[in-house]
């Protein structure tokens, strides 16, 4: 994974509460065995008519939001299904971060493992970012992971929380599996002390 330190980009507003992962990528696109190429399916049912033509009034179809790197969603972004296809689709559609007031737990975990930053801000900042995205689509924000801050066009910097371990992994471009694999001895010791009660291979 590429290290992520900081990046700048334009905002795209999607101020809808409780956006579930079925909307981020509908289930019929999950019949894949790969994680690439899902960008086109991102928000497919909100984005396209039945015949595949883009719905002109959907924010992400509007010309001014093409190439936006930061999606500003409503409260409780990413609820519902655990499908990791959701962050894969958002990344495929060009997003590097999603901003909300809070994220569903599984989505947040999945996003962090793929280098899509779930950025939690307070309700007031969230409102300001939505207005900014709607009124000035050319405005850029900078997301600085090192400083755990979003820097707004007026220079204001807003802190966001992220757990130390995810931050470390993202800044250094290392994945979390490597850390677990390094604990082999601990895991073996645990297994020794806690024999399995069920064995799925014995039937």
């Amino acid at each position, binding site marked *: 994974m590429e290290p992520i330190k900081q990046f700048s980009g334009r905002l795209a507003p999607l101020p*809808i509460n409780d956006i579930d992962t079925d909307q981020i990528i509908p289930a019929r696109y*999950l019949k894949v065995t790969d994680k690439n190429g899902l960008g086109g399916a991102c928000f497919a049912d909100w984005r396209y008519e*039945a015949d595949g033509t883009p719905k002109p009034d959907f924010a992400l179809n509007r010309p001014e939001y093409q190439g936006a790197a930061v999606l500003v969603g409503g409260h409780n972004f990413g*609820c519902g299904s655990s499908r990791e296809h959701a962050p894969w689709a958002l990344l495929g559609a060009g997003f590097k971060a999603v901003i909300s007031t809070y994220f569903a737990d*599984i989505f947040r975990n999945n996003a962090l493992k793929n280098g899509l930053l779930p950025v939690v801000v307070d309700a007031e900042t969230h409102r300001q970012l939505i207005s900014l995205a709607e009124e000035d689509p050319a405005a850029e924000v900078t997301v600085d992971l090192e400083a755990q801050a979003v820097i707004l066009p007026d220079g204001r910097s807003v802190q966001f929380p992220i757990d130390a371990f995810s931050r470390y992994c993202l800044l250094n471009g290392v994945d979390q599996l490597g850390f677990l694999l390094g604990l082999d001895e601990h895991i073996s010791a645990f297994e020794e002390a806690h024999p*399995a009660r069920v064995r*799925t291979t014995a039937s």
Partner: protein
Amino acid sequence: MTNNGTPPRTLFEKVWDNHLVRPQTPDTPAVLYIDLHLVHEVTSPQAFTLLRERGLKVRRPDRTLGTMDHSTPTTPRNAEGIIPVLDTLAAAQLDVMRRNCADFGISLYDLGTDKQGIVHVIGPEQGLTQPGMTIVCGDSHTSTHGAFGALAFGIGTSEVGHVLATQCLLQNRPRTMAVRVDGHLRPGVTAKDIILAIIAKIGVGGGTGYVFEYMGEAIRALSMEGRMTICNMSIEGGARAGMVAPDETTFEYVAGRPYAPKGEAWDTAVSAWRQLPTDDGAAFDNEVVLNADELTPMITYGTNPGMGMPINGFVPDPDNMGDVSQRTALDKALRYMDLQPGQKLLGKRVDVVFLGSCTNSRISDLREAARFIKGRRVADGVRMLVVPGSQQVKAQAEAEGLHEIFKAAGAEWREAGCSMCIAMNGDQLQPGQYAVSTSNRNFEGRQGKGGRTFLASPLTAAATAVNGVISDPREMMN
């Protein structure tokens, strides 16, 4: 203090502590050992690819089990004895699943075999799901298994890879919420109505960051199936896991199942399980209380499971919502559902009734619906699908003659799978159609693009199928 001198702990804390390979530190999450890893075809292929790329094995195939459920057909074998998978992509995904399980030495309940079924139905049914275990699956409804006093939750595909390779997960400790349901359920009101009422109360984000423990008289009185229905939908309230303390009902359910401990091992297991319930005086981070006496059958009117109300209620008015974002959300939902504020749902025509899914496809759900439907007919113009949760459920139902009751009433009797809960296999709503569904999600397009879902209990589903319009089962129960 408890009698052995330790500070009082909750059920969750006990299971969590028992599985710590390494505790949480300021720099790293806890490392949690996973007792049972369930794997299905949709969320695992990329994880196996990762293992191959890195030259890794599955650490504990003996703690891993595969099934096929999401993109599988629910139509019977054809004349050549083949189960027709309509879609080449789905067929390819099933083939990849077979190959992955074979290559990595994982037992697979393959399509067309007698143990196949929805992942959250087969675990408990085989006795694999036991109190005190940690159970994960790349599937958010893994919370179902918490009904046994297991810590069970859904994970993403990267984490599926972690568990395959190391049998461990990196987890930050969640907070705990006591969800207490006092009192007694009235006739016609079920476990499904309890959980729909809880979610309507706390909202779809209300449990974010928490593990629920369901407790109280009404929960104790439920069967294991009822408890599973409730724990299943914990995720719909935002909680990754929901748990119920194991008791005699739990032990009775587990006893004698294929993977349940036998003989002396059983006694040892039960005495360990008796230590699991939350100690007196243990603290929760939060609490919600409901009274079962006040509950009625519930139904959803919107596009998330939190948009629910008593079945005889009226669709709320966005103009009465104080918060702008809530008003927008409700307005958007009602437009999608093509419903009016103030409208009653009772009496509304539906096109489809779906009885199935990991929430309500167990034998007790089918029995309950069949008892109701017996001697009645599915209304003209209504399609009713009955999809058992597993092949074992299907066989049991057929042994009891339930399939004949459903078929005589004009319902479709199907093979086991997720079916119209997720509409990946061709079982789906047409755009604009209305369905009463016993599943767990009424998200836009969940049951088919443009389809509109009302979530309800199996009883409400059965009453609606018979009348062709949304109906209160209590009015037909004499």
